[in-house]
């Protein structure tokens, strides 16, 4: 009773506008308005525009007209697009498996008390912090066909006799890109999984050890299931970021050699911005959407199942 009396007295002193903010619904609306405006203007509206663009025949400097699904039909029959789809899935799948395995390994290595742990943890996150384009240039320089330090090392170790043209061969180029993506992603997996590991009580491990579980069994039957919820969210983020990646491929190969290493985003950029075929570029970008949507839905359902179990 006293509460309402006081707040009633208080609200008498407030201006009408502020009194309106006492109502939770009005306050919520006011607080969400800036976000809604910005996201509406620069996400919802572009999405709608993108759909319209992909259904038209627009080019740079040439307003197009409605052509239905013609652009999608065209890219479906485009052999470069098919390679692109395959590349994107291969790239996402391989990197995710390695990032998870290596990230988990690194997290386990860090989940102990030792001298200098804080410094090591701070340093290993660097590949994730430093702007991707800039660190990718360092890799491109390391993979340079003529001046490659990797070739030099392999040569000095007696493992190769002729140079390896890392970015000149389609398969090697894709592998190089995969290596760099793993390099950049492992710290993120390691640090977030480490946070997950730290929430697991060491007593569970001790109990399992007393019951005679080997280290591998302790990992598989104690750590892994308890870590599952964190793992799933980390994988979800990583899969989406990797699937839609652009910077790495753009810098390393630009989609080459002979369009063999394109991902959705780089091919969309090449057609839409490079050659000015805006509609086809938008269609390729949007072709990511159903895949992303399925990935998100499946992962969210799976996360919910794991969490309610």
């Amino acid at each position, binding site marked *: 009773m006293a509460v309402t009396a006081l707040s009633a007295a208080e609200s008498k002193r407030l201006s009408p506008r502020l009194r309106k903010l006492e109502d939770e619904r009005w306050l919520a609306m006011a607080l969400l308005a800036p976000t809604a405006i910005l996201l509406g203007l620069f996400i919802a509206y572009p999405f709608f525009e993108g759909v319209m663009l992909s259904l038209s025949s627009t080019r740079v400097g040439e307003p197009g007209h409605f052509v239905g699904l013609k652009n999608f039909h065209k890219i479906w029959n485009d052999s470069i697009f098919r390679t692109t789809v395959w590349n994107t899935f291969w790239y996402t799948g391989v990197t995710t498996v390695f990032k998870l395995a290596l990230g988990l390994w690194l997290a386990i290595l860090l989940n102990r008390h030792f001298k200098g742990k804080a410094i090591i943890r701070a340093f290993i996150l660097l590949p994730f*912090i430093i702007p991707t384009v800039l*660190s990718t240039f360092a890799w491109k320089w390391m993979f340079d066909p003529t001046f490659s330090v990797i070739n030099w090392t392999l040569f000095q170790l007696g493992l190769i006799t002729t140079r390896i043209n890392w970015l000149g061969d389609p398969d090697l180029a894709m592998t190089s890109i995969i290596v760099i993506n793993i390099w950049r992603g492992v710290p993120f997996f390691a640090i977030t999984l480490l946070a997950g590991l730290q929430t697991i009580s060491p007593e569970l491990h001790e109990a399992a050890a007393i019951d005679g579980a080997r280290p591998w069994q302790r990992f598989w039957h104690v750590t892994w299931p308890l870590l599952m919820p964190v793992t799933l969210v980390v994988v979800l983020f990583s899969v989406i970021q990797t699937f839609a990646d652009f910077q790495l491929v*753009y810098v390393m190969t630009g989609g080459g050699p002979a369009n063999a290493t394109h991902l959705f985003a780089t091919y969309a950029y090449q057609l839409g911005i490079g050659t000015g075929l805006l509609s086809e570029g938008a269609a390729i970008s949007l072709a990511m959407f159903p895949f992303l949507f399925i990935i998100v839905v499946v992962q969210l359902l799976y996360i919910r199942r794991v969490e309610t179990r």
Partner: protein
Amino acid sequence: MIEGALWRRWVFYNIPLILFVFVLLFPFYWMIVTTFRPDGELYLPWNAVNYMPFWTNNPTLEHILYLFEETNFSRWMLNTMFIALVSTVISLFCGVLAGYALARLNFPYAGGLGTAIFITYLVPQTLLFIPLAEIIRNFQLGDTPWSLILTYPTFLIPFCTWLMMGYFKAIPKELEECARIDGASRWKAMVYIVIPVAVPGILSSGIIAFTLSWNEFIYALVFLSSPDQKTVPVGVTSELIRGDVFFWGPLMAGALLGSIPVAIVYSFFVEHYVSGLTGSVKG
């Protein structure tokens, strides 16, 4: 943790950890060495005799000087700094308010809006860059810093909101109710009681938002065209490669210097950064 024999600790823990650290940090070492290496040493073929790739006895500043004298590098740094700071402030403002509303207020469709924010959190920039470029042009924002300042919040706000929701949910409701009993309005209770308690969260989101905007590439690449408007990642990419010729010395110098602001911010707030990163995946 049950510790075994010394050799076992080295084989299973220390050596793998050293290898991880070596591989994760080597490209940065390579960046630094290249920055200070004279051109004459830089372009020795990989199988040349006496080639000593990991060290140089003739360090030089020529690449750094080239960067400042022959390119707009200092301008790119200022542009990036300005864009990253302003878009971070905008995103924090929006994200804190939206996070507060979604975490602590009862209103219709709160759940639906929370899900919508989470979904925009998952929208990659590469999905929308072509239509967005058209929209930026129609708004007459092309080739200005505002094209980025207004679009970066599209991926920063959902992130900040999501992170702040976690922090706000952890603050007990009683704190606010006490203030309300003492006669504070909802608005005042939020601004003076709840938000100050959430400052660590604001710091975490701010730092991550800053590094994310510094890192952003595709929007900056597509929306900006004149050399003096570019950000560091785009400037380095487009101005230090002419045709097929890579200016590796200045390129590595640019990569090194362009990373320093992020590295400084990160080194001062490592703990906040890590807690933000781990908070962002808590779902």
